[in-house]
């Protein structure tokens, strides 16, 4: 029997790794992957609490999270492709046309 605290700590650590990845990396695709890490970290918490409380709402919610992740990735990668067509790089520091 794994205590709930272990799952919560794993989830928080993965989430922080994802946040650091989003803020530190310059490659837009790696930033997207870090967002995926964060979504997965939240799923761990949802399912751990679900098992702890013997409900199914959290599993349904993590299913919804997967739907949103799929939608987000398809649109986001399309945006990256059209950005790349405009300017052949995926370096986020070079995309500042929307910055005041």
């Amino acid at each position, binding site marked *: 029997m794994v205590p709930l605290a272990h799952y919560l700590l794993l989830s928080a650590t993965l989430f*922080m790794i994802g946040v650091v990845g989003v803020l530190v990396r310059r*490659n837009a695709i790696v930033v997207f992957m870090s967002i995926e890490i964060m979504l997965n970290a939240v799923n761990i918490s949802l399912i751990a609490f679900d098992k702890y409380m013997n409900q199914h709402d959290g599993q349904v919610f993590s299913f919804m999270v997967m739907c949103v992740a799929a*939608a987000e990735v398809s649109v986001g990668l399309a945006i990256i492709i059209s950005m790349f067509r405009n300017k052949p790089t995926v370096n986020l520091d070079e995309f500042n046309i929307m910055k005041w």
Partner: protein
Amino acid sequence: MELLIFYPLAGFSLMLALGVVMNKSPIGSALCLIGMMLGLAGIFALQQAHFIAILQVIIYAGAIMVLFMFVIMLLNLKGTDTKWRARERNTLLTVLTTFLALGVLYKVITVIFEFNLDSPAKVPDTFGTAAVIGETLFTDFVLPFEVASILLLAAMVGAVVLAKTKLD
């Protein structure tokens, strides 16, 4: 016994998540991310969420990562991104990130110590099977389910439109 399975899986997932962030090439990051997804599927299976574990393998490690790989190959980033470099230094961002990290860890630790988390509910054998999840999904959550289908349709149309139109 379950801890003996949990610790290797958790360590594997954490290592590969660090690998995603620190890897030099996007392809390496994507491969690390696939490994991390599979490790997390193992963790979900350990929590008896079998259906979500299968979905994790099919949707995340299968579909989403194939999409990532496809785009990385399509963009052909070879040579443009050879060395690992962080973004430009930003003191405000660093301070905010540190606060965020400390805040999340503080909150998790207070939740762990403040509430008594050592009395889990008794879980029946049918917990987490596709039948039970499906029943919940189509009774209590039928409206969110339909909204999710509209979201996926919108995402599909949006992706086609975005990838097709030429920017001026």
